[in-house]
């Protein structure tokens, strides 16, 4: 009885602690004012910048991340562990370190800065810099989940297809990709959620200018001491987006039927492998 009570109490404290800041964002300003604050130029500009840069990032992440994940998943060498670690690194790096790294690599005085300048490419303080920052921090979420999705495919299925005469490209396109689709979708959703909320690397690498490089998170930071209501309104938008993404990950994992991909943040099912 005491155990159950303690369990109950601890759960209550944990849930209240996690939910309270989220509730407070919506509770502090009435809904109509929240919507009105979203009409400000700063909020609208930030929404456009975020949508545009994240859309480009997602295209890049899917286009390069999917083949990379497939390659990693179909290797079984020592190299694989090293590659996976490399891919996972941005996942745990402090955002400030990511920002410094991007500056040291792509900054005007960075490793590639001179080369890029020779080609007349100057990305300092442009949306390209925002896209790079978002892609750097968000892509590991996709690649990691995608590797797991490809790995969880029953290996007899691709080999059966091969024995029936399908080439490697056909096996990838007709067997592996459809079977891993649920996991890939979930990975993409997680990468998207991380990308939308990207802050540290962006502010260090791309700077902050309304309408150009100021994303929603950067706008929250700037508005925080200019107009707290606007900061709250933008925060509310970010909460809604993040919540929607998490929910869609759960729905995706229900929708996929055949594959056994372990998906992070999916509802845990008691089925064993």
């Amino acid at each position, binding site marked *: 009885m005491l155990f159950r009570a303690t369990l109950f109490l601890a759960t209550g404290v944990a849930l209240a602690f996690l939910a309270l800041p989220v509730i407070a964002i919506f509770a502090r300003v009435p809904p109509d004012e929240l919507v009105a604050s979203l009409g400000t130029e700063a909020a609208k500009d930030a929404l456009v910048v975020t949508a545009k840069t994240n859309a480009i990032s997602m295209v890049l992440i899917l286009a390069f991340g999917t083949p990379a994940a497939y390659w990693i998943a179909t290797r079984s060498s020592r190299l694989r562990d090293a590659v996976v670690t490399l891919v996972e690194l941005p996942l745990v790096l402090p955002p400030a370190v990511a920002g410094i790294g991007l*500056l040291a690599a792509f900054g005007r005085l960075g490793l590639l800065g001179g080369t890029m300048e020779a080609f007349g490419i100057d990305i300092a303080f442009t949306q390209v810099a925002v896209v790079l920052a978002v892609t750097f921090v968000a892509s590991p979420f996709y690649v990691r989940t995608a590797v797991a999705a490809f790995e969880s495919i029953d290996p007899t299925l691709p080999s059966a297809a091969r024995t029936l005469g399908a080439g490697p490209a056909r096996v990838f396109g007709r067997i592996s990709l459809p079977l891993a689709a649920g996991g890939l979708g979930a990975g993409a959703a997680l990468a998207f959620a991380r990308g939308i909320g990207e802050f540290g690397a962006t502010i260090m690498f791309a700077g902050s200018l309304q309408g150009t490089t100021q994303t929603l998170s950067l706008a929250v930071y700037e508005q925080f001491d200019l107009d707290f209501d606007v900061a709250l309104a933008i925060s509310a938008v970010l909460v809604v987006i993040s919540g929607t993404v998490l929910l869609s990950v759960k729905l995706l994992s229900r929708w996929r039927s055949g594959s056994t991909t372990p998906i992070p943040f999916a509802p845990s099912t008691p089925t064993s492998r």
Partner: protein
Amino acid sequence: MRNRLAALLLVLVATVPLAATATAGQQANAPLTIYAAASLTDAFRTFDAGQNYSFAGSNALETQIRNGAPADVFASAAPLNTQRLFRAGLVEKPVTFTANRLALIVPRANPAGIRTIYDLRSKPVKLVVAGPAVPVGGYTITVLRKMGLSSVLGKVVSRESDVRAVTGKIALGQGDAGFVYVTDARAVSDQVTVIRIPAWAQPRVRYEIAVVARSSNRAAARAFINSVLSARGQTALKNAGFLPAPKAAS
């Protein structure tokens, strides 16, 4: 049911001593929490390394104190921020303790070829400034207006959250030019070239310091402020490049 209640009480009782210890920690010799303008970073750390500092844009610090941040002392790069808190009863009466000037800095390599402030108008340049609510951002607007150069604000590529972020972007060569305090320019003097701003165009940069009203250690906070105002404190500030506080209190 009674057991549940007992467990709840147990948890509550268990947390009380913890809270009490936390409060007891705020004794006379405990370090103060000092919220100070980012431009004071080097000067304050050198002057008194024994305190806990939080350096940021004065406007951000003002908002944090307004929202109940546990600061003992607030040192602002503009009277506006301290005076607003004073009027709201959140700090004791602020005093002016030092002054500063602005400068334009460019990276050593000077990719945009900026030699004078007026080059900002004629040459393509990635100009980095602090946001308008940040004291140094406001002072930047004043300088440009006094020099008839307000149009160069159209060349701003980033509005940073404090002066140190501006300094960093220029020292790293990301930006072509940035407006900072002369004291910040000194901190990165090996990476940047300083372009002076004429005295007639300088804004009145006045720093104010005040005891935070909610501080649990106001006596020690006042002692810290007195040490900043003392000859030793003023010498430390002067060595960091700050100017003496203007005599006429305004």
